[in-house]
């Protein structure tokens, strides 16, 4: 006997992601899923962002990490609420993990929640976790071939940060090729060239982020 099923494998995760998003949306909180390889500078970008925006925007961070709380400790020093999720070897966060920690956040006192995903360009791209937008960080030292090798994560991103621009003169990174490939995969995404060491491009990143927070706050009112 044949049974027609036609069910999406990620359906359960996606339903949960929608309900997670609804809980943040009720309070007009913008949720960002921050993605990128290990060492691309996700945590550095987060630290800069918190230090420069926490006077204007009430931020909390959820840190995904395989085993350690090293990133959460870095964030904690900036005096914003931070929750650590250890995936115990799991390669990505899923909606259930976010759902289980929402209760630890005081949603009345937040405008922006940034979720730093596990460092990985593959698996996290498939799992929505209740975010309003995805941002992917790609660093110069990873090589310009990465967008075409991992197109899904770039396709699904609303913003792409090309980080460590200060290192460009010391590498053979082909910037034109990287930009051309990213624009081909995702012509609509915002592309920011940045350096967390020289502060290049950070203003543009903050403008994008602040705009998303403002828009979300309005829909929550």
């Amino acid at each position, binding site marked *: *006997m044949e049974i027609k*099923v*036609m*069910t999406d*494998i990620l359906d359960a995760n996606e339903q949960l992601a929608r309900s997670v998003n609804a809980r943040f949306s009720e309070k007009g909180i913008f949720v960002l899923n921050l993605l990128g390889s290990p060492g691309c500078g996700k945590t550095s970008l987060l630290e800069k962002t918190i230090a420069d925006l926490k006077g204007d925007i009430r931020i909390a961070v959820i840190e995904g990490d395989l085993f350690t709380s090293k990133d959460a400790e870095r964030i904690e020093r900036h005096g914003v609420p931070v929750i650590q999720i250890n995936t115990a070897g799991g*390669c*990505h966060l899923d909606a259930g993990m976010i759902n289980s920690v929402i209760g630890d956040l005081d949603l009345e006192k937040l405008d922006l929640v940034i979720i730093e995903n596990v460092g990985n360009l593959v698996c996290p791209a498939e799992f929505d976790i209740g975010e309003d937008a995805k941002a992917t960080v790609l660093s110069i030292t990873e090589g310009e071939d990465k967008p075409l090798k991992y197109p899904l994560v770039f396709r699904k991103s609303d913003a792409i940060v090309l980080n460590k621009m200060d290192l460009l003169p010391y590498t053979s990174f082909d910037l034109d090729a990287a930009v051309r490939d990213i624009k081909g995969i995702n*012509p609509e995404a915002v592309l920011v060239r940045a350096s967390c060491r020289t502060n290049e491009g950070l203003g543009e990143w903050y403008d994008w982020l602040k705009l998303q927070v403002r828009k979300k706050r309005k829909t929550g009112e």
Partner: protein
Amino acid sequence: MHEMALAQGILATALDAASSNDAVKIGRIKLLVGEMTNVEPESLKFCFTALAAGTIAEGAELDISITPLVGRCSVCGSEFPVKGYYFICTQCQSSSVEIVSGRELRVEHLEVE
């Protein structure tokens, strides 16, 4: 390796559908997997075999069809195969292209006893 999470989703979906149809054994599971998904079919099969042991899906074959990546231009409406992940309309050069196929991760049907 997120194939384990996907295999769990497949097994749960299959067991659910089988039990609501009073099936006692699942022989084959037909899956649609899009070209633009981060799935390695062999790894998915390996994970599924491990998870299905001891259930009515033990030994079931995962029959995977890969669907090609196809875009649709939201300006001129033309549909075209997306080559080299270049999401620009081949007819009108618009950059507003949605994916109509190639992102599937779907259990299509089961063969059961």
